């Protein structure tokens, strides 16, 4: 059914389970040939969105188009979608060959074509020698490649991936990612890839959509989301280690030589507001803001690759030094009055003798992020990218309630995890069954 040049359009789509909108007014345009990634914490609606695209769930409101064709009322089988699942969803009683051939047989493809396609897909994914085996004789990585080969032999209009790497060891993931990109490029059709792992999203996606509580937060390239997050949630969710968040108060600089300048004051430190951000910060004079500092924007003053002023440092107690290829990641806590965890990624290896000592780290002030605590909206770099988000949808930062921002997301994550069980339990078996119906 062709559609090689068609993109995918999701227009104001709502999906309700009972009273609850699991997907809430979602609008997305997926370009022809694009690998589009949906990322978000458990319960954000990303897997439901995938199931709506596959036709495994009907939409409550809104429209989905494959190219020009409205597919709202089209059965899964007739949407011609190929899915790859986290648990691979391969049939245990069938050989690898029959598993790969399944979709083609269900469509009554001629035997010659089946043989040819299965063999060439198996060769591509290095499982040629396994065609006669049953799935239980395969390793996790091999099963995953069977699932990819099964998608490869299809000529689908749209390819959907539901956390396909989640069950693989770290060392296998790099290879598996390459295999998925190979599949995607060879097919040249739009693909939607769902993951909760932002690092995977950054590695794979042409564009990434961040979702939370059924709502779209921001769409952009990985670097867009990282450097210009539209709100505090996106800033926190994208990036490992995560952005450091501090609750600060905006006060005038009292020293006469700094007349008219503003400072961001935290119980453990105080930082000057760079002149270029003065306009955005002035309206918050005397009020609270959430300050975000990426781990790589904290460096030892004498080794920083940015301008360092004497009054732009944060002191921290070194708790853990984790070696990395390019230096190390240092986990610290602020000194007074209540210790608060933060992270810095340094370009040099900090010697172990610094453990338990307190060190100053200079802040790259031009790279700081500021968020309005009322609605989490970004005030500086990502301000233009903002998608309106209701106040309640954004985590309350740190010191407000004496707990850390992470805890907050923990509990909220838990609260929203009660999505219908069937969202988690998807299997190709059910797709195929519906396809045959």
């Amino acid at each position: 059914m062709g559609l090689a040049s068609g993109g995918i359009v999701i227009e104001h789509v709502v999906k309700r389970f009972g009273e609850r909108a699991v997907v809430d007014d979602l609008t997305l345009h997926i370009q022809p040939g694009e690998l589009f990634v949906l990322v978000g914490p458990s319960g954000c609606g990303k897997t439901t969105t995938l199931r709506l695209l596959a036709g495994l769930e009907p939409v409550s409101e809104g429209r989905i188009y494959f190219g020009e064709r409205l597919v709202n009322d089209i059965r899964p089988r007739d949407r011609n979608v190929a899915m790859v699942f986290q648990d691979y969803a391969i049939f245990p009683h069938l050989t690898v060959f029959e598993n790969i051939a399944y979709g083609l047989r269900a469509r009554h493809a001629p035997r010659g074509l089946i043989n040819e396609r299965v063999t060439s897909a198996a060769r591509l994914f290095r499982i040629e020698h396994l065609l006669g085996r049953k799935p239980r004789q395969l390793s996790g990585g091999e099963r995953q490649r069977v699932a990819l080969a099964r998608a490869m032999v299809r000529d689908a209009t749209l390819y959907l991936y539901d956390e396909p790497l989640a069950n693989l060891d770290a060392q296998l993931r790099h290879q598996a990612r390459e295999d998925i990109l190979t599949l995607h490029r060879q097919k040249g059709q739009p693909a939607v890839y769902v993951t909760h792992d932002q690092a995977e999203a950054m590695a794979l996606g042409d564009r990434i959509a961040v979702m939370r509580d059924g709502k779209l937060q921001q769409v952009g390239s990985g670097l867009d989301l990282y450097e210009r997050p539209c709100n505090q949630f996106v800033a926190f969710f994208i990036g490992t280690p995560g952005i450091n968040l501090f609750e600060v108060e905006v006060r005038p600089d009292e020293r006469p030589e700094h007349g008219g300048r503003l400072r961001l004051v935290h119980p453990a430190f105080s930082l000057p507001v760079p002149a270029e951000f003065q306009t955005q910060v002035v309206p918050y004079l005397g009020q609270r803001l959430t300050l975000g500092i990426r781990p790589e924007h904290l460096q030892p003053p004498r080794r920083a690759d940015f301008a360092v002023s004497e009054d732009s440092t944060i002191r921290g107690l070194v708790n853990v030094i984790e070696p990395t290829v390019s230096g190390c990641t240092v986990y610290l806590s602020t000194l007074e009055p209540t210790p608060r965890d933060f992270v810095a990624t340094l370009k040099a290896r900090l010697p172990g003798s610094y453990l338990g000592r307190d060190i100053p780290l200079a802040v790259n002030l031009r790279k700081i992020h500021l968020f309005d605590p009322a609605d989490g909206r970004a005030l500086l770099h990502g301000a233009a990218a903002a998608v309106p988000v209701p106040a309640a949808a954004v985590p309350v930062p740190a010191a407000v309630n004496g707990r850390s921002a992470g805890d907050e997301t923990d509990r909220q994550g838990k609260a929203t995890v009660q999505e219908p069980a069937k969202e988690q339990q998807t299997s190709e078996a059910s797709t195929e069954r519906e396809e045959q119906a």
Partner: protein
Amino acid sequence: MTSLRLEHIVKDYDGPGGRQPALRDISLEVADGETLAIVGPSGCGKSTLLKIVAGLEFPTHGRIYYGNIDMTDIKPQDRGVGMVFQDYALYPAMKSKGNLAYYFEHHDYTHEQMEERVRRTAELMGVDFQHLLGRFPETLSGGEQQRVAIARCIVRDPTIFLMDEPIVNLDAKRREKTRIEIKKLLRTFGVTTLYVTHDQQEAIFMGDRLAVMRAGRIEQVGSFDDLYYSPANLFVATFIGSPPLNILPAAVSEGRLHMAGQSWPLPPELAERLPPGPLRLGVRAEHWLRDQPDGLPLEISHSERIPTERIAIVHGHWLGQRVTVSLPLEQADSKSGLARLRPDWEQLLYFAADDERVLASPGPPELF
């Protein structure tokens, strides 16, 4: 608190094909208060090793010492170990506090002693632990449940702490936060700990030292720098490091290195050290030099960005071999210098062609 010593531990299982060795001659020492991370692919024997230390399994041969005390034949309940598993295993019908107190209610302690121990543990667990005590496990997030499970171990004053993939069931973001908490707790309590994981990054983070296992053997024990810059063999070299090490076949003759019809002069020290004949190069993503007069083009397939380290990883083919190359993030779009690329010979690992032996390795670089 105590050190831990394993001497020549062997464990055989009776399997369908006869005796199957699960552990083959494992000897290890863990210092008092140290965390040793045990890492290896699934089926390497790391969980079996943990069970043997706990006394849940008994070794076929070998001895286990806690400090100077031989524990080999001691029952698990008398060893005083604290174990934390991936599935938390909290008693669902009890609030967190009940989970902590359970042990004391079943071992001759007074109510006051129990209250005191629970109070002290909660204090050590941190300011925000108190509010978890009055809640049932099902109302806690995965990370919170795991903290309660850890507190339940700590409250008993374990001699040795054993953790088996404790955070594998948490999603990526929560894992990041929970591992910091666990690491801080391990430091606070200074309990000798074995920490089992399949994830090298987690092992690097958690372990004061790491032990890499494969097929029932320990391949190497050491710091991250030891494993990364001076691996014991090809297996350790490919297991540690992300993206994985690229292996390129090559040959040495007359002080030159030959690869796929090309050849380069070797630095004198390497030329002297490497035996003539075929060998394999281990090239990490950061081991490439760009813009070299004797460089060759990289055929790019795709790239990924790692903003926190300010690098991009470019995947592609070089001399017909799959390779990964790291670039400064700022140059990720221009791909500058990739047309004349070659490995930095002095940084590479050199392996024998026909087995896993290391012929030369660079050792850690000078960073300061």
